[in-house]
């Protein structure tokens, strides 16, 4: 396994959470650096590792521990591929509204550790909103649970949230429980082309102001112009009315499947409060290819080339209180601009938290903000 040009000296494929915790603790005791690997789809995220000794694969932790369709909950091991989980849930006409870019092949644990999400967050939020329980292997070999398996729970601190998007730096996620959703009663995908950005943005705002907004809305910038694609879901009568009010043309659902497979070797995620997204998009260079999520405030820039253009976009996002994070880039570009951008004002508290869980920086040293 190679991450940003740094090759691991060894790898481990533990068969259980206990084995994984033991391997992690052993590495920590020896002062080694460990990078947890799920599907390997998001290893481009973060700064180049300072050290890398052991690739710790979760691939053998791939069981569905408990699926209770009538309770709308599921508990899975971290190495389970998202597609496998969704196929199982679909048998009960349910789903996890997690539709990240850069697939297929994401594992559940990897998605939680990276905090990736997709277009459906417009309606369903991110994993932060439907993750109900975690089990995490800590560098001292302990296995700690937080939350539970029920859909509503305020027992103890909500440590689930701390691990989301932490790139494994507080511990390696080995098991997760989710609240599930029933598949929509009725659903259509509609599309509209636009020549210029302003026209496209106005249409996006119109879609968002409908009495029943789309559950997902993507604004795509390609070489030839702009496309808007929306996913309308709800009761049959309701969807029919909204489709009529919106007036966009029907298009195959396949669009979303293909969108989820888009990614790039050199790409970034821009995030800003929804009302400021248009200004940030205008700051991107004309030839840029990107997909934006109006109403959410997030955009994926797929054709990242020069450090200068990226710096300008990051400055525009940060000026609005947002951020620009590299999801994958050459080691050179990472060294030049840094993966994460300006550190948050609370960085000291974050450092203390990291030190409380991973005092020797065993997990992914150098890759995360802390």
């Amino acid at each position, binding site marked *: 396994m190679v991450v940003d040009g740094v090759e691991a000296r060894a790898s481990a494929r533990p068969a259980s959470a206990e084995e994984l915790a033991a391997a992690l603790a052993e590495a920590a005791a020896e002062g080694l650096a460990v990078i947890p690997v799920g599907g390997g789809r998001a290893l481009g995220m973060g700064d180049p590792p300072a050290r890398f000794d052991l690739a710790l694969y979760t691939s053998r932790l791939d069981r569905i521990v408990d699926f209770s369709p009538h309770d709308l909950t599921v508990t899975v091991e971290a190495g389970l591929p998202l597609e496998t989980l969704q196929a199982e849930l679909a048998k009960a006409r349910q789903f996890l509204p997690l539709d990240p870019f850069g697939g297929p092949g994401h594992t559940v644990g990897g998605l939680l550790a990276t905090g990736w999400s997709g277009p459906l967050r417009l309606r369903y939020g991110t994993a932060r909103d439907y993750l109900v329980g975690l089990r995490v292997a800590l560098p001292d070999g302990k296995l700690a649970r937080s939350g*539970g398996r*029920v859909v*509503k729970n305020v*027992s*103890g601190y909500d440590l689930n*949230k701390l691990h989301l998007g932490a790139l494994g730096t507080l511990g390696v996620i080995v098991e997760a429980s989710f609240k599930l959703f029933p598949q929509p009663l009725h659903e259509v995908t509609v599309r509209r082309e636009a020549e210029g950005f302003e026209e496209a943005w106005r249409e996006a705002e119109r879609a968002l102001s409908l009495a029943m907004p789309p559950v997902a809305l993507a604004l795509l910038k390609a070489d030839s112009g702009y496309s808007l694609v929306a996913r309308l879901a709800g*009761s049959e009568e309701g969807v029919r009315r909204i489709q009529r009010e919106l007036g966009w043309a029907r298009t195959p659902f396949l669009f979303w499947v293909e969108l989820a497979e888009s990614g790039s070797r050199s790409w970034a995620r821009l995030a800003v409060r929804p009302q400021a997204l248009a200004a940030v998009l205008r700051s991107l260079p004309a030839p840029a290819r990107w997909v934006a999520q109006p109403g*959410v405030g997030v955009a994926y820039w797929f054709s990242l080339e020069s450090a200068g253009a990226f710096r300008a976009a990051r400055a525009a996002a940060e000026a609005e209180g947002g*951020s620009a994070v590299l999801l994958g880039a050459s080691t050179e570009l990472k060294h030049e601009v840094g993966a994460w951008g300006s550190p948050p004002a609370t960085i000291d508290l974050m450092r203390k938290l990291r030190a*409380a869980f991973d005092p020797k920086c065993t997990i992914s040293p150098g890759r995360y903000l802390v």
Partner: protein
Amino acid sequence: MNRGALEQLRKAVGADHVVSDPHDLVIFERDASITGALPDAIVFPADTAEVSKVLRIAAAHGLPVVPRGAGTGLSGGAVTIRHGIALSLARMHRILEIDAGNRTATVEPGVVNLDLSQAAARQGLFYAPDPSSQKACTIGGNAAENSGGPHCLYYGVTSNHVLGMEVVLADGSVHRVGGDNPDRPGLDLLGVLVGSEGTMAVITKIQVKLLPLPEAVTTLMAAFPTIETASHAVSDVIAHGIVPAALEMMDHATVGAVEAHYRAGYPTDAGAVLLVEVDGLTESAQELMDQVRRLLESNEAFSCRVAADAAERELLWAGRKGAIGALGRIKPNYYLHDGVVPRTRLPEVLRQVGEVAGRYRLPVANVFHAGDGNLHPNILFDLRETGVMDRVEKAGEEMLRACIDAGGTLSGEHGIGLEKNAFMPWIFGPDDLDAMQRVKDVFDPGGSLNPGKVFPDAERKEARLLARSGVASEAQWW
């Protein structure tokens, strides 16, 4: 508390805003739980800077600090079990901004939940979490406890709606966590502070999400012969892919008390009454409610009634939200837990709840969030009866135990506080609690913020006895 500390507090917030007369302190002895303890002083800061000063003074004198909203909490979160300072945020009650464009509001912690929703409604928006105490409870308290409410079934709990907070730590330092960037790089400090029950930080500002008011809301009341039939109906609705905005159940005892008080039109011969609310487009709400009604009726529902207008809807809800108060008709005092179970286990757990109550010779009335399996068994009693509290507490503990044995958890929305911290080892092992303690130690290394809560507390038993005997006449305060 020594004179020096008191003088400093008076200087920090103004002498009028520090209460230390023993007679006045009694007012802040309790929250809505069954324990109480006197603070040494009550301090009412006016703004963040004053909160920070108070915390610095407390740190210098080694005084515990317990933040307090409206005191409607049910788990003892606002009880000053180690005495020290009760920090009331009541004076910080301004709505600072409602940003209709970004659909957010920024408020001070003392803003009352319902006041925010009403202010937002003027711009066609609403704040989703709606605890039954929403007429009194504050947004700061809601954020500290991660409160729920009937409409959380569809809309989610408080943590799903808080975007950012300004907090003051025990050392007096002020921090902004979260914000409106949807993908903030860095650890989610906001996420772990919401629901931390005042043990890690004092919340001084909250930015929340607002949602557009739905075009249509329809509310249906349905009666069932038994709790079992009603529970099956609930499962059937959800199995058909319908997640209503709210799905609430009341048992026979509750219906009787509520009907006598509110005349909401609940059939008093019902074994259980369900309230179902569906919102959205006019067409969707209608279509979904028709489907819901058919499903309920195929599960033995009778006397189904859809509220004809807003007034009727509010009456149906008044009964549900005022249910616990109405139970005063049966006995003057109540005690309730809010354990959660997987929804499919509701009928058997409710049966066990009834058995436990019978064994302890205590009446119990159930009103709960059926959609998400969140129980609220109200144990009814009269505090003037000698020795009744021991039976009440024992019964409550056994009911919670039944929830845990069914794969559930201790609390869905009320918090752990000092009511259930001794039971934490039922669901969390030493390693789980140790992980939580590490986080606590980062934010509050001296352990001065709301001590004796959330974590199992070796000093608890003694402290509670002290608390009890510290009350001149317990019954007086019920």
